[in-house]
């Protein structure tokens, strides 16, 4: 195989730069030869080459579904990609506890919830509850962390009130439902309320959920965001570092 040109990377099927991509989609047009042709044209107009309509199926009600393989000439420059990421190294629970004890010298306080309409607590529970997730204990199990998990469908106001009342270091928010971008709306709402109350600087604001990333969280005005596969250590470590940084 020839060398990959990292300045111009393109999809790979079984030969470098063959550009092969699989697509599937439905068009709101009745099934038939014309529908297949429409699918092909859609692929061509989308910039693909040699679209092969490998499957076409009647969805009923005037819809047609397609599986397509096609070639793409689009390349990306891999050499310029930099993803804003948490630079912090993943600490272990033991280390975190130790450093809180020795460097912060008081317990860290966090409050968390699934806000607004979202009732998916499994994610925030995985981070906060005693039991944790995949063998990684949650924040409640940390000696040096005082963790309040308010659960599901908590209004932004209630969450903030709790954070104020326990003098939290960090507010943790989980958002799992993303349909019609409701997570963006909910997350933004929280930031706005904090700002309105002049409390934005007072708390570390952290969100998490399967469709969230550090990058997106920053865009929304959060201090950090965590996606799939996060463990309590990641969050505790981040809060620890941030609290220490604020001290300086």
């Amino acid at each position, binding site marked *: 195989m020839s060398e990959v040109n990292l300045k111009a990377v393109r999809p790979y099927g079984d030969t470098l730069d063959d550009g092969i991509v699989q697509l599937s989609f439905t068009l709101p047009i009745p099934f038939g030869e014309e529908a297949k042709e429409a699918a092909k044209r859609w692929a061509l107009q989308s910039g693909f080459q040699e679209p092969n309509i490998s499957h076409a*199926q009647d969805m009923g009600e005037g*819809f047609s579904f397609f599986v397509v393989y096609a070639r793409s000439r689009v390349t990306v420059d891999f050499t310029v990609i930099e993803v804003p990421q948490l630079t912090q190294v993943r600490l272990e629970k033991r280390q975190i506890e130790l450093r809180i004890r020795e460097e912060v010298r008081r317990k860290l306080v966090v409050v968390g919830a699934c806000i607004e309409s979202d009732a998916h607590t499994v994610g925030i529970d995985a981070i906060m509850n005693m039991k944790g997730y995949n063998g990684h204990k949650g924040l409640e199990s940390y000696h040096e962390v005082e963790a309040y998990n308010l659960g599901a469908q908590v209004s932004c106001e209630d969450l903030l009130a709790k954070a104020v009342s326990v003098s939290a270091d960090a507010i943790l928010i989980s958002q799992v439902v993303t349909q*019609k971008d409701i997570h963006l709306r909910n997350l933004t709402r929280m930031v706005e309320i904090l700002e309105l109350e002049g409390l934005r600087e007072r708390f570390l604001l952290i969100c998490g959920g399967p469709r969230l990333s550090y990058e997106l969280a920053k865009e929304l005005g959060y201090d950090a965001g965590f996606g799939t596969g996060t463990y309590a250590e990641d969050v505790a470590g981040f809060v620890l570092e941030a609290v220490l940084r604020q001290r300086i």
Partner: protein
Amino acid sequence: MLTYPYQERKLNLNPALIDEARTLAKEIVAEVKPFIISHSTVSVERAVLRLLGIDGVNSEGIPLPNLVVEHLQEEGLLAEGSARTLTRAFIHYGKSPQSLAEGIEQGTIRLTELPDFPEEVIENTARALALPAVAKIRAQRQARRAMLAQGEGIEPYLYVIVATGDIYEDVVQARAAARQGADIIAVIRSTGQSLLDYVPYGPTTEGFGGTYATQANFRIMRAALDEVGKELGRYIRLTNYASGLCMPEIAAMGALERLDVMLNDSMYGIIFRDINMQRTFVDQYFSRMINGFAGIIINTGEDNYLTTADAMEAAHTVLASNFINAEFAFLSGVPEEQQGLGHAMEINPDVPDAFLYEMAQAQLVREVFPRSPIKYMPPTKHMTGNIFRGHIQDALFNVASVLTGQSIHLLGMLTEAIHTPLIQDRALSLEAARLVFGVLRHMGEEITFKAEGRIQKRAVETLEKAVGMLRDIEKIGLFMALERGMFADISRSLEGGRGLDGVFAKGADYLNPFIRLLGAETEGREAFESSAMGGERDV
């Protein structure tokens, strides 16, 4: 393809244990019964009003049933039951309940100043006012039976959801799904509707992760499915959710609009929506009474336990809860043939031999409830963004389902971890299930499990644990069991949660004509009991 009741006995279960479980569950429910029958709720009363014919909203969008109940509450008249006061008003004003409600809304009618009437007159009049709804529901049940006779799918029924948030888009998806092979269409409700203490009104086109359950939406979807079902020669069942703070009202709406299946659990709202347990127990009792009478299959929500708890560890909690749910159903007069007890395939597929344990659980539920149209829920928690892998997980679920003779088969979607189903997701799932069911149709009959093998052992163990749990609950009572978080690792308190303020003790002269008309041992049933008893299902 199932012959009822399910006949196979592959697990070598001890029948005495099953009997014990049933007895324990009966006792657990019996302990809650006095509370249930001595209480009512705002939602029960609103359901009564709806059944009496009150519908619509005021200019601010507040439903008339809510306005009337609030009015009664303010006037201290609720404890007698909304039916009593409305009946008195009817006799007095000679106006229909709907006109009365409108009058109350406009302030032209006040219920405090009503004269009294002889009890017999009130009861007979209430009954007369109730009969049209009863007749309507009965007619719907008969219509269903007639349509089913024209053709329907074979079990396991293929059940898919639509969840666009827009009833008109839902209709498109549902009709397409029917053509793609679905037997049952569930219209998922908008996130959070369960916490609303009223039922939205009219056709709706906005919702998150689902569409609002409204009577208009029920009607629109029902008509669409009847049409496409007729064309296909296959009755398409319609499902919605009689759950949350309005479960009795939604049950009433569903019965009137001929829904066929209702998610309608005795404890789901408590555990998963933090609805007060007193409220839920009373609400579920009346809502199930309606569903039972309407020939609607209820679905319980034990599958949800395994989305928070671990499926290997908590399998027995599902079964224990199934027993309790079934007893609550009996209490409301829902026969086994309408008890769509829920369970799920949620073991982490990384667990070696996970499929064997899933089989054990699925077969166990099947054998323990041989007459119930049990509902089998697909993998959800361990689905990931890898749609190709997910499609295989779902295929295994399909295999388990057909091997163990499940009745209602909720299709897994390859995009479970990504979004609510797209039109093609459903088609692909339906196609996969049809494929699997077709090539394995009689495999269940062909195989037996090794005596004392992994599957039998697991099933026996799960049954034993469930019985142990029921023994514990029987000792401490169901309220306490919920407080201790024995289901789904979630703990709820007697006074906590939403909706407690809507619960009230029935007054001595409480009246609700529907309890007699729809209830288990009562008149309205007769017409249907004979057939249901015969084991034949018209649901």
